[in-house]
């Protein structure tokens, strides 16, 4: 099916050759799973924590990729959804003693609601305004978390309990590593399936020419809201597991800088292309580790990198545009 080929190339860029044939597809995936499974043992605890962080960012970046990469909505306040997930779980487990796994569906609903509240006002705005309004919302969420008592004010929430799953206490770094592996894998599969669907195409139509999309019968309000809601759910799920992983959360984890880092992960690797976004997430997390000596100049390096990419290769560091086969 040639249509399949086109989707694959759009999603995976130059790596698509790995996924086109049954044999290479399954062996690539098997190799990857093996690699991920033994990494903690091979690389030790410190590396495990870093990798877990990178996987967290994979989920976050894939979520933002739905909003920015697929639907073309420049959300500069994505950390708000991250915060909604984290605080919902934190508050419900700590103040109300609800089991972690039961809080997840509630976090999903909260995220969907946040997606509607934040996305709703932006629907008719042009992209410049949209960027700043979403930024404003991001700040409103952070400042509210900082000011309200129920969110622990400036010191945040601490002592969040680690969850149990069928007798397995998910508490050690290696436990969370495997949990985030699964989370990231789910995020990737969901992203692929969404891109390859009626909704995924609708996002592209609306993104490329909103008026014509509407003339073709596509309800752009529903389509845009769907992007926000789905992106929000990704963010909230990441936030939920982030909260129990760290055991403590504070408003500073949900600042504009955080939103920018997630956006960088999406762009540096190649907007819209899944391996690129994954690569970007790793760059954003591993980069500062490797550039540790540069101290406060680390973020500057990223900023300059982002600027250079935008000027010379706007589709990210992944080579080549949508190749026509």
């Amino acid at each position: 099916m040639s249509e399949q080929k086109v989707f694959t190339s759009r999603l995976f860029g130059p790596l698509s050759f790995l996924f086109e044939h049954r044999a290479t597809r399954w062996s690539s995936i098997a190799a990857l799973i093996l690699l991920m499974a033994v990494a903690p043992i091979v690389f030790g605890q410190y590396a495990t924590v870093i990798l877990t962080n990178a996987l967290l960012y994979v989920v976050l970046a894939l979520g933002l990729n739905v909003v920015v990469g697929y639907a073309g909505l420049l959300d500069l306040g994505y950390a708000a959804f991250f915060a909604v997930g984290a605080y919902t779980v934190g508050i419900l487990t700590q103040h109300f003693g609800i089991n972690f796994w039961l809080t997840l569906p509630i976090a999903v609903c909260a995220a969907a609601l946040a997606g509607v509240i934040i996305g709703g006002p932006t629907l008719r705005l042009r992209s410049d305004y949209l960027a700043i309004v979403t930024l404003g919302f991001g700040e409103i969420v952070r400042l509210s978390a900082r000011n309200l008592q129920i969110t622990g004010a400036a010191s945040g929430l601490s002592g969040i309990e680690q969850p149990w799953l069928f007798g397995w206490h998910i508490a050690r770094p290696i436990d969370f590593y495997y949990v985030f592996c699964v989370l990231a894998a789910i995020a990737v599969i969901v992203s692929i399936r969404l891109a390859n669907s009626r909704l995924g195409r609708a996002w592209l139509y609306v993104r490329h020419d909103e008026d014509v999309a509407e003339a073709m019968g596509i309800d752009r309000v529903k389509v845009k809201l769907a992007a926000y809601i789905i992106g929000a759910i990704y963010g909230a799920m990441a936030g939920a597991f982030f909260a129990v992983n760290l055991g403590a959360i504070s408003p500073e984890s949900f600042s504009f800088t955080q939103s920018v880092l997630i956006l960088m992960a999406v762009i540096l690797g190649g907007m819209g292309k899944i391996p690129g976004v994954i690569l970007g997430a790793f760059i954003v997390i591993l980069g500062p580790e490797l550039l540790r000596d540069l101290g406060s100049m680390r973020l500057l390096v990223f900023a300059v990198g982002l600027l250079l990419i935008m000027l010379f290769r706007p589709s990210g560091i992944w080579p080549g545009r949508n190749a026509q086969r």
Partner: protein
Amino acid sequence: MNDTLLDLTGVGLAFAGNRVLQDIDFNVPAGAVVSLIGPNGAGKTSLFNCITGFYKPQTGRITFGGHELLDLKPHLVTKAGIARTFQNLRLFREMTVLENVMSGMHCRTRSGAIAAVLRTPRQRKEEREIEAFSRDCLRFVGVDDDLDREATTLAYGHQRRIEIARALATRPKLLLLDEPAAGLNSGEKEDLIALIARIRDERGISVLLIEHDTGLVMKASERVSVLDHGVMIAEGTAREIQNDPKVIEAYLGQDDAEASLGF
């Protein structure tokens, strides 16, 4: 004889004091091909935009097969059964020919995010239907290969046809074509006339077209309406219109009056 499919009564449109359309009474019968002609700036595309819901006329009523169109958002107008092409060819960039046409099927299908993520049997069946019907529409307009090439890289004549296929994919009852012959050579124009006839005869879709090429208008349409400065000044068969003094006068205001009247 024929039922009226689209009916406009007393439609008036003004922008910032400019009267674009005045008291338009106009209809399209079912199963017919109607042309809308007039000098440049007469308001033809504006009339299209009123019908499709992009402009909101200040006065009048528009009914389509029983539905009131006036308060409908554009995507609902399409869902009700009206599809269009554009004067300056607006295919989706960076998307393939097939994907462009598949956009038309969005309003005729229902699978949402959850069905997509879970890949339910119904979703997969729908995806197959979307692709199959889109290919069918493309075959109908005569575009058979290069389906996964980027649509905007194809030859101009092909792109025009792809736009029509895209509109057909919405399963319309009425097709609005905005200057579909612009930029086509005479061979392509003949193909277009045949295509329009097939759209009406084989698919039972009524066609309303805006055109400047009077030869094409005469051969393709059963009825012609003439718009000038926002007012409907004449209506009848192509032959009747050609000899109508009001029409001749309206076109005499243009530089290429004789040419545009096709004498």
